[in-house]
């Protein structure tokens, strides 16, 4: 459950045309309850950018290994003080990032191994000759 605790609006950035700031931001504070027990507090912003003529939001993400909580404002009404919030519990999202990281790490390891092996073995014949010589010398030494 998400409970709103406050809402405040202000102009931000340098002066733009007739506005005292380049954007108008509304800060929405909230508390999050999990199974009725207080879990965390957060803040999200709903911003109207005058320079770019667009609105955008900041998000709240509570990270976890097996699930994450995502909260973002959808719409708000300044006069009535009402805000519509988007809340989503995202399961196993960490596994996506972990999988990507593993793929990248695997490719780096593969590249480094192949790249370092390139200089050592130039032809299959050179590899065979080198191994045979070393092996025969060690066997001779062993017999002595």
């Amino acid at each position, binding site marked *: 459950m998400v409970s709103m605790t406050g809402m405040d609006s202000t102009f931000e950035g340098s002066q733009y045309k007739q506005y005292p700031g*380049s954007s108008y931001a509304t800060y929405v504070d909230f508390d999050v309850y999990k199974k009725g027990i207080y879990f965390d507090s957060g803040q999200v912003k709903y911003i109207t950018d005058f320079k770019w003529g667009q609105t955008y939001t900041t998000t709240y993400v509570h990270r976890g290994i097996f699930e994450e909580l995502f909260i973002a404002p959808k719409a708000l009404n300044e006069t009535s003080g009402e805000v519509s919030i*988007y809340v989503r519990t*995202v399961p196993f999202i960490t596994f996506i990032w972990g999988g*990507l990281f593993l793929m*990248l790490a695997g490719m780096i390891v593969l*590249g480094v191994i*192949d790249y370092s092996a390139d200089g050592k073995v130039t032809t299959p014949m050179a590899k065979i000759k080198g191994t045979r010589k070393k092996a025969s010398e060690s066997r001779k030494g062993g017999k002595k």
Partner: protein
Amino acid sequence: MNFGMILIWIAFILGAGSVIYSIIHLRTNNAHAVSLSRKLELGCTVLITLAILMLIYYLLTVSASYVYVYMHSSIDLEFVYRLSALWAGQEGSFLLWTWFTLLMLLAMQYTGHTKELSDTRLMNITRAICLCIVTVFLMLLVLKNPFSMYYGGVGAYVDISNWNPFVSAYPLVDGQGMNPLLRNPWMAVHPPVLFLGYAAFTLPFAAALATLLIDDERWIKISRDWMRLAWLFLTAGIGLGGFWAYEVLGWGAWYWTWDPVETSSLIPWITATAYLHSQTRVQQGEYRFLAPMLAVVSFILVIFATFVTRSGMWVSVHSWQDFTLEGMIIAIFLLVLLGSSLVLLVRRYFEENEDRC
């Protein structure tokens, strides 16, 4: 005087000259031609490096008389985002992509195990194809110069100069700044990583075309590491883009929404992954048709992804503009790549079938 604009023009002339001399060398085996071609290529790389440094300087100091700086940098922007403004727009990102390709081309010729192929016909053809591609990119930069400037007297009509480097700049003290959605650390690194991947796709493509022309099995020496690098950066780029979308974009905690541009960058990733699997058997004499085909298709799909982004034909969060001359040139370039590759691939396909018979 607008030195940046002139740098781009000279870089284009040097790039075109380098292509012409490399083709002369391939036809006549003239050693002087290849030497001259290499010098011109080096000169082109130096000039593009200077152009990048110049544009970074203008972005950091907010020299807003330059259209690109006005559109993407501003005084209230943090240092890191003024820097990342280099790849926030079309012209800057193309400049960066061209620069990466030129640097990788030099790295291929002068470093690593591909250095030993430096005077072979395979390397010369690969190099010539890469230079052709770079020259097309440079032509696009000439047409849509990152150093275009606002000119006109104070209070008079203000226009944009893309062709005259001697106009007196219209004095502007601040720019519009960066789109707020792009002011994010993940977004600051996502495009250059992606462009590194895109640039690295050029070399396996050129090597594959070279082997389709002269049937040299050593092409895999060039394509192996560069395709891995391309795959690595493309994977990281797509991942970073997904992470940004998840946190910022307001897709509702979704990292993937089958947006036309992200889908078009996933397709070359799939073909590149298939190529990486096929190349393990090339040294055993297998996949003589499939492996070059996948390398060629991967790069063509990268250019297609660029067309999707820059043509404005598809509605996407990545789109920059409506269909313009630049979009048309990319479309023509795409058709030329597709046509020439198709001819060579069909020839190889029938050769392979004849060998089996």
